[in-house]
């Protein structure tokens, strides 16, 4: 399955890029983040994040489909 991952804020800095295409066997956002965290040494625990799939907030355990775009959202600090 091929996915697009977009990175923002501290995750973008830690990953060193703002988006990537990825061939993965992860079937949910939770599995996907765990894979990326291990591979790239991302500092944030999954419990502090939210996730969006295809430009909407999503559940950690919803199935991912080929071509989906996933975004992991660090704690926000607007205002």
């Amino acid at each position, binding site marked *: 399955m091929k996915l697009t991952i*977009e990175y*923002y*804020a*501290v*995750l973008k*800095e*830690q990953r060193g890029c703002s988006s990537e295409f990825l061939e993965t066997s992860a079937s949910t956002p939770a599995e996907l983040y765990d894979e990326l965290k291990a591979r790239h040494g991302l*500092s*944030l*625990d999954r419990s*502090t994040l*939210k996730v*969006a799939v295809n*430009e*909407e*907030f999503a559940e950690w355990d919803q199935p991912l489909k080929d071509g989906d775009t996933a*975004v992991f*959202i*660090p*704690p*926000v*600090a*607007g*205002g």
Partner: protein
Amino acid sequence: MELNRFQISEIAIEPDKLRLELQSEIAGAYTSFEGWVRNHNEGASVQALEYSAYKVLAEKEGDRIIAEALDRFEIAGAAAIHRIGLLDIGDVAVWVGASSAHRGPAFDGCRYIIDEIKDRVPIWKRESYEHGPDQWVNCAKGSLA
């Protein structure tokens, strides 16, 4: 700037123009909130800061917040705008405005919108300090060594 919308802006916010959007003949009360870049945060001296956003989702979620405020409070109109990019001390980081027939809903609606923006909208703040490394606010483990 559209009525009842939330917007991410890369250019300076002009509150005096934004409030005009909310004027209507039925509105007798107008409340606004502005977030200004301070020179300190939790004891540290701030020199500058940068906001970034996941723009598409931020604007969707901001629009939902304003729709919720219109639904919950007797307000005539509301709007909000958040700046991104490099900001200086004193710059307007966020503006929220709400108008209504009476003042109670204007205050309550304005406050609801800024509270929810700070809680839910994917916008991040990176602060530069006089002493110490830059830091992503609220991302303790993400401080830049």
